[in-house]
């Protein structure tokens, strides 16, 4: 019977590297879309308005939250990687730095998610106007 090896149970920093890659590609993908939809305004302002209107759905709202999360993680972890590269003690404190940026990420994302989705939640589940 054929078999695959186990998943390598690497250092936590391996997973931050994977996350850095994924968030990087995700943000790049957003930029493509963003350049395209913004360019549309020069072609046809009406079409542009249509496209922007189509973004005002709950799904796109949650994707926006995802985008903010991705950009924030990528930026914070990027600072950590710079410290690991240029600060003599960076490699010794890489784990502490990783937990710090994760904490900062959560601290920012909790209120950000709340305010960004407030309108959608109200629209979806009703309540005060």
């Amino acid at each position, binding site marked *: *019977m*054929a*078999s695959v*090896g*186990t*998943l*390598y*149970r*690497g*250092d*936590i*920093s*391996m997973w931050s*590297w994977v996350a850095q890659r994924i968030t990087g590609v995700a943000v790049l993908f957003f930029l493509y879309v963003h350049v395209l939809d913004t360019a549309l305004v020069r072609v046809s302002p009406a079409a542009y308005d249509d496209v922007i209107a189509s973004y005002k759905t709950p799904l796109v709202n949650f994707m926006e939250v995802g985008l903010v999360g991705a950009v924030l993680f990528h930026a914070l972890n990027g600072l950590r*990687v710079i410290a*690991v*590269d*240029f600060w*003599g003690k*960076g*490699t*010794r404190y*890489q784990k502490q730095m990783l937990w710090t940026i994760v904490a900062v990420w959560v601290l920012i994302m909790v209120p950000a998610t709340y305010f960004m989705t407030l309108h959608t939640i109200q629209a979806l589940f009703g309540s005060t106007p």
Partner: protein
Amino acid sequence: MAVDPPAPSAAGAPQPAPEPVAFDITVKVRRFDPDVSDQHYWQDFTVSVFATDRILDALHKIKWEQDGSLTFRRSCGHGICGSDAMRINGKNRLACKTLVKDLNTKKPITVEAIKGLTVKKDLVVDMEPFMAAYRKIKPFLITHSPEPTRERLQDAEDRARFDDTTKCILCAACTTSCPVFWTDEQYFGPAAIVNAHRFIFDSRDEGGPERLQILNQAEGAWRCRTTFNCTDACPRGIQVTEAIQQVKRAMMFGIDDAT
């Protein structure tokens, strides 16, 4: 002359150490025999071990008592020859330094070959690409100035600069834990850079610029993405990533300003 045993103290005779108890563990080995099939497969073995046994002992028991065809490398059995790096429960470890008591024995313990080098049989891989990378960084003293008439002296501070990287036993645990190496066998890998570091930062050596030039190539130190898997895997506790980062900084700022 007879020696009296010490009289029992008021608190009672010293308790004999409890007898160690043997118990069964399951070792799940990822096997491969090119003479039989080109497929890898997992095989479970049940072995009776003591908590203080090493995974190497369990492998010996399997080989000696159950299946003589099980193939692995080991030599010293004491963490110094670097022969028996393997992936134990998903992490690169030396079988001779991994104690049963430090693993979860409720579940099968997985043992497989290190990743990224071609498996020759069971747990044995072709180490040649690894050794070739090691040879490329010129792991020997290089000097250009006239030979001194006495020893090449070095003060303690200069010696300390590369102390960590002298400890390498070339087990390949670091290089085969590296996600970059898995996908690119041409990458020099952490072990070669560690051994380059050992000479680059040695005040007696004059081949630093040469080695930095070699490691400045596309497949050199810049391929490192600081995932720290190597540092986690090194059985000698070498700060592998730190050494690589110092080599990178030596390329940017010079050897004297790298640390």
